[in-house]
C-alpha cells in the first residue's frame, strides 16, 4: 500500500504528460495552425492588394485591360481563362477517370488492377513541369496538326471551334490539365468504390442483377460522395496549376471566343509577371489576382458542398 501511494503521483504525471494531454495539445495546435495560416493568407492578400482595390474597385473584376505601361489592370481575361481551362479539364478527365476507376475496382482481374493502380499513382506523383515539357514537345504538335483541324472540320461553324489554329491555347491547356488531374480522380474514386461493402454487391446480384447492373445501381450510388470528392480535388488542382498551363496556353491576356486561341490563367500570370513587376499598382494588382483566385476556389468549393447536400437528400448512402 505504501508503495502504491508513492507511485500514484508518478502515474498521474505519466498519464498527464505521456499520453492524452500531450496528444490533445499537439493535435489542437496543428488543427489551429490551419486556421491561422488561412486567415493570415487572406489578410496578407487583402492588405497587399489595397492600392489596386483602391484604384480600380470592383471594375478590376470586369475590365479586360492588362497594360503594365499605362498601369491599368483588369482580371476578366484571367478569370475566364482559369474557369474555361478547368472546365475543359473536368469535361475530359471525369468520364475518363471515373470509368477507369470502375474498371479497376469492379471489373479488372486483381493482378492487372494492382499493376494499373501502381502506374496511376506514379502518374499522380509526376511534377507538373514535366507535363509542361511533354506538352510542348508532343501535345502541341499533335493538337495543331491533327486534333484541332479535325475538330474544326466537323464543328467549324461554331465560334468555339473557329479561327486560326496555333497549337497552344485554351483547349491544349485543358487537355494537359485533364491528363494531370485524372490520376487523382482514378485514385480517389477507386478507393471510394473499394470501400463499398461487399454485401451491397451481393445483394444486387442475388436479386438477379447482372455484373454491370450491380455496379451501376448498387455500387456507384453508394460511392457517390467519394467520387464527387475526387472530382473536387481534381478541380482544385486544375484551378491552381501554374507551370504546365503557362507553357501551353499562349499567355495572351485577352478573351477569345475560340478554344483554339491563346489565353491566360490567374496562376500563370502571377508566376510570369510577379518577379519583374515594379510599381505599387502593378504589384498589388497581381496580389489582387491571387485574392480573386482564392475567392474563386472558395466559391467553387461552396457550390460543390451545395451539390453534395442536394444530391445526398435523394441519395441512398450517407458519408
Amino acid at each position, binding site marked *: 500500500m505504501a508503495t502504491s501511494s508513492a507511485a500514484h503521483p508518478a502515474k498521474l504525471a505519466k498519464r498527464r504528460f505521456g499520453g492524452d494531454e500531450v496528444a490533445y495539445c499537439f493535435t489542437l495546435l496543428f488543427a489551429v495552425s490551419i486556421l491561422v495560416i488561412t486567415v493570415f493568407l487572406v489578410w496578407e492578400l487583402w492588405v497587399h492588394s489595397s492600392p489596386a482595390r483602391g484604384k480600380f474597385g470592383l471594375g478590376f473584376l470586369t475590365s479586360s485591360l492588362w497594360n*503594365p505601361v499605362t498601369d491599368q489592370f483588369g482580371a476578366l481575361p484571367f478569370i475566364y481563362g482559369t474557369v474555361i481551362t478547368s472546365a475543359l479539364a473536368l469535361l475530359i478527365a471525369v468520364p475518363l477517370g471515373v470509368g477507369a476507376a470502375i474498371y479497376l475496382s469492379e471489373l479488372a482481374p486483381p493482378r492487372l488492377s494492382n499493376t494499373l493502380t501502381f502506374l496511376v499513382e506514379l502518374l499522380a506523383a509526376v511534377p507538373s513541369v514535366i507535363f509542361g515539357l511533354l506538352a510542348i514537345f508532343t501535345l502541341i504538335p499533335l493538337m495543331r496538326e491533327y486534333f484541332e483541324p479535325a475538330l474544326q472540320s466537323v464543328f467549324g461553324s461554331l465560334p468555339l471551334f473557329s479561327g486560326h489554329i496555333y497549337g497552344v491555347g485554351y483547349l491544349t491547356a485543358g487537355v494537359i490539365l485533364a491528363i494531370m488531374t485524372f490520376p487523382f480522380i482514378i485514385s480517389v474514386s477507386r478507393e471510394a468504390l473499394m470501400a463499398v461493402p461487399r454485401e451491397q454487391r451481393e445483394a444486387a446480384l442475388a436479386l438477379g442483377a447482372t455484373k454491370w447492373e450491380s455496379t451501376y445501381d448498387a455500387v456507384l450510388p453508394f460511392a457517390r460522395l467519394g467520387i464527387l470528392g475526387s472530382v473536387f480535388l481534381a478541380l482544385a488542382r486544375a484551378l491552381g496549376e501554374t507551370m504546365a498551363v*503557362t507553357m501551353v496556353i499562349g499567355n495572351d491576356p485577352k478573351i477569345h471566343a475560340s478554344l483554339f486561341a491563346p489565353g491566360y490563367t490567374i496562376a500563370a500570370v502571377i*508566376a510570369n*509577371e510577379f518577379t519583374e513587376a515594379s510599381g505599387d499598382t502593378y504589384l498589388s494588382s497581381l496580389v489582387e489576382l491571387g485574392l480573386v483566385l482564392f475567392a474563386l476556389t472558395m466559391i467553387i468549393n461552396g457550390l460543390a458542398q451545395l451539390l453534395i447536400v442536394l444530391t445526398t437528400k435523394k441519395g441512398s448512402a450517407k458519408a
Partner: protein
Amino acid sequence: MKTFVVTGLAILPALLASSAMAADTINAAGATFPAPIYQKWFGEYKAAHPEVQINYQPIGSGGGIRQLIAGTVDFGASDMPMKDGQMGDMKVKPLHFPTVMGAVVLSYNIPNVTAILKLTPDVIAGIYLGNVKSWDDAKIKAANPGVNLPSKAIEVVHRSDGSGTSFCFTDYLSKISPEWKSKVGVNDSVQWPLGLGGKGSDGVEGLIKQTPYSIGYVELIYAVQNKMSFADVQNASGSFVTPSFKSVSEAAANSKEMPDDFRVSITNAPGKASYPISTFTWLLVPSHIADPARKKAITGFLGWMLTTGQKDAEGLSYAQLPKAVVTKVQKQIAQIQ
C-alpha cells in the same frame, strides 16, 4: 496545455533573432540575364579577397529595384535603368554602374528556308504590330531577294514574363516606330498587340521551335547556345548587321554622348557596324554606404569588375564595355560616399 503554446511562441523570436545576426555578407539581388557572369565574378573576387562574400539572388530586374528601394539588399542589378519616379522615392540616390552588354536577336523558324533573313526596322515593327502578316509580304521580299519565302501567316512569339529582354526590344521598337510608341510603349512587360507568350527564354525557344513559320526575340547568348537561327537587322545607318559581341560593342562606342548617370539606351545606335537592338546591364549601388567595411568591399569589387572582371565577359558570351566607357565608370566609383 497553455504552457505548451506559450513555450512554442517564445522559441520563435529567438530563432528569428539568431538568423538575423548571421555572418556579415553583402547581399545583392536583381537581373537574371547577367546572373551567370555575376556569380562567376563574385566567386572569383572572393577567391582573391576572402573577406568579401557577396551573395547574389537572380530574382529579376524589377525585384532587384524593389529590394534596393526597400533597403533589403546592399546593391541591386537591373537590365533597365531606373525610372525617375523610382529614384525619387529613395532617400539615398542609387548610382548606375554598367557591367557588360548584351543583344536581343530575332529568331525564326521557317521550314525549307536556310538563308539568313534580313529584317528592316519597318518589317520588325510591322510584324509585332500585326501590319505585316505573311512571310511573302512585299516588304520582307524586298529585303531578301532570292529567298523563296512561303505564303504563310507569321506566328509572332514574345516573352510572357516581365524581362529586361522585353524592355530592350520594346525600347527599340518605340524608337523606330511612332505607331508602336503611341500604341504600346516601353516596359519590361507590355500589352502585346498580338502573338503567343512564352515564359522565359526557354519558353520562347520552345514555341519558336514547335511552331512552323514563327518569329520571336531572345538574348543573343541564348540563341547562340541553342543553335537557333537569327536574322541580320538593318541599323540606323542602313546597313544589315549580324548580332555579335563586336557589333554590340560598336553600338555602345557609337552611341550618342554617354550621360553622367549612365542611364542610357543604346538601341538604334548610329554607326555602320552597330547592332541596333543592344543594351547595357547595370549594378545599382547606393551613393552613400554607412558601414565603412561594406563600402570598401563594394567599391573594391567595382574597381576589379571594370578591369580584371571584364576579361571574363566573352567566355560567357557577353560583350565587354568599350574602353571609353570603362574610364568614365571608374570615375563614378569615387561618388560612393
